[in-house]
């Protein structure tokens, strides 16, 4: 459950994929802790970024190990090559590669073990859900779904819960605009949800809801 904070931006995603690609070419496997220790990813919301990437099917989560899907590998490679080019340019201008600052971040990040463990646990849960057919509401076809998890910031989460789209609620997708907002019916009322909002609502088709019990009433 993450608090009100900045959105995951494209750079976060790209840096993450690049790091994964780099580690893959070096023959290393990557766990969440490994990724958090990467200097490029210090100060970035790694766990949340991985959540987003997993939902976009750019990465796979298996037993705490993060690996790239073909789609993710493609992006990672592209970003990696772009960075290499930039780095070569910078080096030819006489700039040093790693700064002391980055080293500092690295040390700082590894201290917070509890946070790493909590994030690992969350990602593990997410991995299991994805295996069981949980999708983002924005990817859902018309039909009925049960909300499993809101991966949104605090304000958005409260708002969605108040409007009746909290975990456990059943929503019916009525209308979808490609790359745009959707309309759903929840508790008898019709709501419009922006695409970004719908991307943060994880749902399971209603027939499969048995494996994800709602908060008991």
């Amino acid at each position, binding site marked *: 459950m993450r608090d009100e904070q900045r959105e995951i931006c494209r750079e976060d995603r790209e840096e993450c994929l690049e790091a994964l690609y780099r580690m893959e070419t070096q023959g290393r496997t990557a766990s969440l802790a490994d990724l958090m220790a990467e200097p490029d990813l210090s100060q970035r919301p790694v766990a949340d970024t991985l959540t987003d990437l997993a939902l976009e099917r750019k990465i796979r989560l298996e037993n705490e190990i993060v690996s790239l899907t073909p789609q993710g590998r493609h992006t990672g490679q592209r970003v990696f090559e772009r960075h290499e080019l930039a780095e070569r340019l910078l080096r030819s201008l006489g700039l040093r590669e790693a700064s002391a600052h980055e080293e500092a971040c690295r040390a700082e990040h590894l201290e917070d073990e509890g946070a790493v463990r909590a994030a690992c646990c969350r990602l593990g849960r997410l991995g299991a859900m994805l295996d069981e057919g949980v999708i983002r509401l924005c990817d859902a076809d018309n039909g009925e779904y049960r909300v499993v998890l809101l991966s949104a910031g605090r304000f*958005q*989460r409260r708002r969605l*819960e108040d*409007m009746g789209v909290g975990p456990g609620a059943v929503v019916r997708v009525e209308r979808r605009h490609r*790359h745009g*907002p959707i309309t759903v019916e929840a*508790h008898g009322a019709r709501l419009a949800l*922006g695409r970004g909002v719908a991307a943060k609502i994880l749902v399971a088709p209603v027939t499969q809801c048995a494996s994800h019990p709602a908060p008991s009433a």
Partner: protein
Amino acid sequence: MSHPPVTPSPLLPAGTPPQAKAGAEPTLVLVGNANVGKSVLFNALTGMNQTIGNWPGKTVELANGTFLFQGRHLRVVDLPGIYSLSTYSQEELVAREFLATGLGDVVIDVLDSTVLERNLYLALQLRELETPAVLALNLTDIAAKQGLDIDTELIAAEMGVPVVKTTAAAGKGLELLVETALAHAGKQPAPAPRYGREVEEAVARVQGLLATATLPATVTGMPPRFVALKLLERDPEMERLLAGFPEVVAEAQSIAAELEAVHGHEAAGIIAAERYAVAGRIAAAAVHRSSTGRASGAERLDSLLLHRVLGWTALVLVMFAMFALIFQVGGWAAGLLDGAFAALEEAFYGLGLSQVWANFLWQGLIQGVLAGISVALPYLVPFYVILSVLENSGYLARMAFLTDTIMHRLGLHGKAFIPIFLGYGCSVPAVLGTRIMERDRDRLIAGILATLVPCSARTVVILGLVGAFVGFWPAVSLYLLDLLIVFLAGRLLNRHLPGENVGLIMEMPRLRNPGLRLSLKQTWFRLKDFAAFAFPIIVAGSFLLFVLEWLGWLQPIAAFLAPFTQTVLGLPPVTVIVLVFGVLRKELALIMLAALLGTTEFGLVLSAQQMYVFALIVLLYVPCISTIAVFRREFGTRMAVLVSAGEVALALALGATVNWVWRLAGMIVG
């Protein structure tokens, strides 16, 4: 402006003499989701005895009214439409402050009978406050049309408060509603419905915790169960009220954490789900569908309006019609008013006052008022009427839905489309229109962007100067440049203002007949409100300018700034005076420029470069004084000053850049 028809309140028996006030008048408080017919109910009760005002320090509209009922004076307050009593938007915060501090005697919760389950969610939260309340099941006519049969007694028994069916639009059931409300005012209602065992256990534990501490008076006035629920939800406002009791808050949080460990969700989410479970149970038991409704005409129309292609076509047509209406009607009325004011001026100078006094009174005071009137009336009246119609018919929500993707690129969501689009007409309604958004952050971004869009007055300058004397494409390039600036400003503000971009989460109200009478009435009261806050600023501004001119300070200022104007911007020194006066009314800028340059053939005295730079500066520098006044009112003095200064700086910097780039290009080419 024609006065809207004055309708006598249906509850006011004709000829009842207003009685002397005996003690304080009982206050009814209207609460409910958006679009449930609260305003209609409020207007039916109060007739013309009402004022629209702001909650102190907040840009939340509160309507206040009085009426006579069976010989008693009653007061009604219409709170903003809300979906919850959490405190994540200003509306919710204001509503909760009002209700929790016991400012009313009895709450009338207005519910949409056709969406009972969702509406009961808020009703359950009101019950947590344990104030005397009545539920008004409104829109019963539509529910009946949909074949819904609602058992009000069952709802009353479950919720612990009386329930009355109403059709506010037809004035039905209101008498019974007010009678019931008065009968229950000040009386302790039955206990509120309970939630699941685990939640109630946690609540009981927190309540026990609260009983051990001596809490501040702001909290002891609220029911302990309500305080406990809010603490479990980690409600920021409640935690703020209890900031002096960190142990209590921490202990409540650990109880919440236990609850969370069992369910795997946040306590706030669990409690919300509990409320929906109760609401769902009550609605399922109380509502019977006697006939399954077919897709109605409204639904078919809705599919069309939300369609990817047809919907957009309709949107463009509606926008075009709206624009045409506002500016046709507005331009026509402004022309009439200007004619009338010219006649008035002549008559005034014919009064035989001494020249100095006549000038002082007319130019210093009266002209400012008249300028205010000729901006406000012609454009604001159609704007308010149309906005109100769009809002009440439910079309506004469809517009927001369609434009959400575009606005998302600016870091905003669909609802921001309306104010920014209105900015092309006039910045004043555009800034006022930002109210349709919930969050301050979104309001501010949309407000700033709306002032950066060229309003019709600035369009006059662009077309009259650049379009007429430089060419069509240079004029178009100014618009494109402006779009780019709006886009960049949107991205920049979105990145640097604190808070996240929440995205669109909006109820789609049913499409319905908007009812023009209500819109006219709302327009009238909003105009009164506008006059009260904008006129003093407009008059003060024009008075200041008059004094400057009268003291003969304008020419020296222009001369003093001449080096800057000439070298940096490449403009003749007199343009400074035009720009200063342009703050008052931008549509006068061209006329003044002509007067100061001594010709309307601008092409003879100004180079293409000068005209382009001048138009660019007019396009971007501070919005006019009326806009500054509404901006100040919506976003505070500090923001108004900051944004005005920022826009002046932006305009001058861009003007200088264009000037120098043009010059350099000229040197290279020449």
